[in-house]
C-alpha cells in the first residue's frame, strides 16, 4: 500500500469536472428529445427550469403553483416537440408558453375571486381593482426588517399589476430580457413593450410610494 507524501501525488483529475464541451444548441437538444433522447430533454430542462420557475413565480406570486406551471410548460414543450419551428429562439418559445400558462392561471384566479374586500388600488386603466395592503406607517427598528418588508411589498405590488403590464415588466426588470425578445414572447411590437414597461413602472412607483 503506497502512502501519499505530497499533495502533488493526489489524483485531482479524478474529482475535477469533465472538460467543458461545446454547448449544444437548444434546437439540437429538442430535436434529439423528439427522436427519443431522454438525456437531451433532461439537459433542456436543466437549462431552463430555474428561469421558468422564477418567471412564473414573479408572475403569480405563488411558488407551488409556479412549480406546477413550470412543469406543465416542459410537458407542453415535450408534447409539441414535433411541431416546434426554429424560426425563433427556443428561449422565446418556452417563455411564450410559460407566459400563456401564467396568464391563464391569473385569469382563473380572477374568476374565482368573488369580492375583493381590500381592493382600493385602481389600475387607472379601466380594469378591475387589485388587492394591495397598505403599508404600516410605524417606523421599523431593524434595517433588515425594513429590507424584507420592502422586498415583500415589491413582490405583492408586482403581483397586483394588470397582466399586460406585469409580464413585460418582469421579463425586462427581473429576467433581463431585451425589448426585442419581449416583443417576440408577447407577440407584440417593441414600441408597445416599451410603453407598457414605462406604464408598469409608473403604477409600481405609485403603489410603492410609502415604501420608497
Amino acid at each position: 500500500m503506497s502512502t501519499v507524501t505530497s499533495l502533488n501525488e493526489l489524483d485531482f483529475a479524478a474529482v475535477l469536472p469533465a472538460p467543458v464541451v461545446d454547448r449544444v444548441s437548444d434546437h439540437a437538444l429538442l430535436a434529439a428529445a423528439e427522436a427519443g433522447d431522454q438525456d437531451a430533454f433532461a439537459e433542456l430542462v436543466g437549462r431552463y427550469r430555474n428561469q421558468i420557475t422564477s418567471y412564473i413565480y414573479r408572475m403569480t406570486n405563488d411558488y407551488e403553483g409556479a412549480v406546477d406551471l413550470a412543469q406543465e410548460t416542459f410537458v407542453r414543450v415535450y408534447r409539441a416537440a414535433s411541431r416546434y419551428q426554429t424560426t425563433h429562439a427556443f428561449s422565446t418559445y418556452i417563455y411564450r408558453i410559460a407566459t400563456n400558462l401564467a396568464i391563464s392561471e391569473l385569469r382563473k384566479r380572477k374568476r374565482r375571486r368573488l369580492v375583493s374586500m381590500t381592493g382600493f388600488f385602481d389600475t387607472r386603466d379601466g380594469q378591475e381593482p387589485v388587492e394591495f395592503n397598505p403599508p404600516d406607517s410605524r417606523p421599523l427598528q431593524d434595517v433588515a426588517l425594513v429590507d424584507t418588508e420592502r422586498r415583500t411589498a415589491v413582490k405583492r405590488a408586482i403581483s397586483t399589476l394588470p397582466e399586460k403590464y406585469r409580464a413585460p415588466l418582469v421579463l425586462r426588470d427581473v429576467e433581463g430580457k431585451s425589448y426585442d425578445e419581449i416583443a417576440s414572447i408577447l407577440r407584440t411590437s417593441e414600441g408597445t413593450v416599451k410603453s407598457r414597461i414605462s406604464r408598469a413602472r409608473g403604477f409600481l412607483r405609485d403603489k410603492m410610494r410609502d415604501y420608497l
Partner: protein
Amino acid sequence: MKTMDCRSVGQEIDARERNQGLSGGATEHLAHCAGCRQIAEQGATLHALVTGLGTVSAPPDFDMRLRARLARERRYSSPWVNFWRQATTAPAVGLAFSLLVVVGLAVYLLGADPGGSGKLAKAPAAPTSQSPNVTTGAPDTAKNNPPVGIGQDPASDGKKAFSAPGSKDLTPPRQPRNEVVRNQKAGFTSREFNSLPAVTVKDSDPSAPVVSLSAPMQPVVVSMRDDRGGTRTISLPPVTFGSQKLIQNQYQPVSLASAGKGAW
C-alpha cells in the same frame, strides 16, 4: 436647451433603463423641480428593488416529478384519451359532443317506443254494465272508443290529448274545463278511472309450442335444442316453481363451433 414639463420628465424617468442617464432637458428640469427629483429618486430605488429580487430556484425534485409526469402522460396517451382530452379542453368541441350525445339519446328513446302510449290507450273496451260510474249520452260510441283521458274532449275520440309521438296532430286540447262543462250540458259526465282494473298486455305468441311438466319430487333437467343446433340445459328444482337455474349456457352457433380454438 428646451426645457421639459413634469409629465414628460416623469415618462422619461419611467422609461429609463438601468445605468442610463436622462436627457439634457430632463436633467435641467430636475435641477429646478423638487417633485420630479423625488420621482427620479424613487424610480431609481424601485428599480434597484425590482432587479434585486433575483431568480427563484426550482425545487430539487423538479426533474423527478417532471419525469413521473411525462411517464404518466405517455401511459395514458391512447388515441381515445387524447380525443377525450381535446374534447374536454376545447369548450366548443366539448359542447358539440355533449349535444350530439343528448340528441342521440333523445332519438333512441323516441325510437324505442314509436307507438308512444298507444298500448296504454288501448284498454279493452269495458261493457257499459261493468262500469257503473260511466254514464254516457252516446252508448253506441262508447263501446268502440278507448277510455277518455282527464281533460280530454270525448268527442275527439281520444286522439288529441294522448296522440302518439309519431302522429302529426300534437296540439293540446284547448280550454278543457269549458269543454267538460259543455259536454255535461249535452248529457256527458266524467269517468272514474281509478275504479277500472289495470290493463294487462300480454306479448306471448299463441303459436309458440307449450310443454307441460308435472311437478316431480326430483330435480328435472330439461335440455332444449334450437334450430341452429345450440343446446340449453335448464335445471328445475323440485319445490320452487319460480326459480330456474341455468346450469349450462353452451349455446354455440354452428359456424363458431366448427371454427375451433384460436379463431380470435
